[in-house]
């Protein structure tokens, strides 16, 4: 059992959860997601995000479409799929359960 690994595992789960959460409030392109994740200090380097997005998309949780941008090349907009929404709901409920559990244990 090593601390770095435990932390990484935790953060991975949370990060995946947060990506879905961000997208549930509306479609977004990668830079938007990065901005929000960086604000909440969930990621340090941006490169971390792309493999996760790619995996979630391949798992059928996300879809994307191309949209013209006012400046520069077209952007890739990510959106939650139905499966993604379902997944997020599950994650949300298990998250609150976990929070409650952790809190109740920690506060005792």
């Amino acid at each position, binding site marked *: 059992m090593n601390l770095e690994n435990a932390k990484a595992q935790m953060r991975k789960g949370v990060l995946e959860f947060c990506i879905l959460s961000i997208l549930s409030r509306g479609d977004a392109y990668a*830079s938007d997601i990065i901005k929000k994740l960086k604000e909440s200090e969930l990621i340090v*380097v*941006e490169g971390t995000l792309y493999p996760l997005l790619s995996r979630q998309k*391949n798992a059928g949780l996300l879809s994307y479409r191309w949209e013209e941008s006012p400046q520069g*090349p077209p*952007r890739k907009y990510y959106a939650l799929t139905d499966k993604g929404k379902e997944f997020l709901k599950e994650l949300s409920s298990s998250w609150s359960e976990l929070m409650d559990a952790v809190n109740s244990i920690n506060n005792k």
Partner: protein
Amino acid sequence: MKKAVQINIGGRYFHIDEDAYQVLNEYLESLKAHFEKEKEAGNEIIEDIEQRMTELFESRLTNNKQVISLYDVHEVIKILGRIEDFEFVEEKDEFKEEEEKETTYKRKENRRLYRDPDNSYLGGVAAGLGAYFNIDPLWPRLLFVALVFANGFGVILYFILWVIVPKAKTTAQKLQMKGEPVTIQNIEKSISDEYQKVKRNIHKMKDSGKFKKTQEVFNDILTGIGLLFKALLKLIIYIIGIAFIIAGIALIAGIGITIFTRFNLFDSIHWPEINLPDLSEIFIDPANFNLMTICIIILVLVPLLALIYGGIKLIFNIKAKNRILGATALTAWILALILFITLVFIEGENYALEASGSSTYTIKDNNYKTIYLDIKEEYDLYQGITVYSIFDFDIYYNKSNEKILGKPELDIIKGYEDKPQLTIKKYARNVSMENADNYLDKVEYKWEQNDSIFYFDQFYTVDKEYKWRFPKVELILKIPEDQIIYISEGMEDILGDVDNLDYYWEGDMTGKSWIMTEKGLKLYKN
């Protein structure tokens, strides 16, 4: 002035400084190499990252600044992160880590010391040591530097290690250096690692070209000296190795020839007089002798074989240590030594004491005017007789009847009885405690009287089974005054140092008549 190149990332054109381009290209290559295994998804990830890169570059360009600089590239890479900074890109889980730990544990055993050329500053010795002990190469480096101040010991140590520790050249060696098992997966992993390293090295080199150059020159010089010493060392090792082999084979051959000839396993003309097993039977129990022979063979052969083995190992640079072989050989040698010493003691005990005894016979005298002394011819004693000359002893061995023979010595002195007397004195120089008393009985000497003729046996005999304990037989013939004796020619063989008034040598005393006078033996003239 800097050269700028035009690139296309994420569907946009940029102008970029050449040095910046190099770094950017390396970075993208490293990403591609990493995500390559994810195929389709990997391409997509790269595309997304490139897309993001475009945005980041755009935000850095202004109307006054149209070209991407090296600094920009470094900043963008910092934001995006290098592969090793990506979190949980590798799908790691507990189980895998456990497994890795286990392999780490196993690794130690097949880890080998190599010089690590990939992380080297000089010859890669410190880096290799670091890999070997699984520590940061900084520590060995510091140690070497510290040891430089110990009378320059660090320099010598480093140099020696440089010369004798091989450089990890192949992928398999690099894996062994880190103690990782050489499997296809590991080789693949190592190759892709190396790929990254090459990329980063290029990057490093660009950053510090000057440093690298000095290092290379220094490296070249030291490598040159190192190669020279290595060649010399190799030559010396070769010579020593060949010398070992030649010496070993020559000694074995020499000993072998000697033993075989002396053992008469094939007919030898050169040493017909000595046949070791036969000779040994005279002194030593044959079983003990065989054991001793085996011991001696082991005692001599083992070191010689070790010499040859060592020589071969030196020449062919065989690193493998065969502990079992070595231990067996050493054990055999020590056992042989112990056994040999024990046997020597056992046999040596047989020679510890001296014994002597005598018996006197009065001659039947019918008042012969002349007494004739003669040798009794016993032809069967001469059949197949072998003479061994050891020190001042002549030992005669007759293999056919298994009798050991010795020549007695006859002395003739004045007797005070009225009749001649013969005293037979037997000595044994070396007898063992248990047979000290009766050994002398086994020493047989025969003589006989036929009227006036005394026949003396030419030899006294000991049966082979009683061994040769260096017995001696002295014959003392006491002659009364005025008695005439004739010493026949054949007596020369056994005649000792006989005092006579004419000062004749014993060899000259035969074939003549003598008379015992008051003062001693005197030549008698008719």
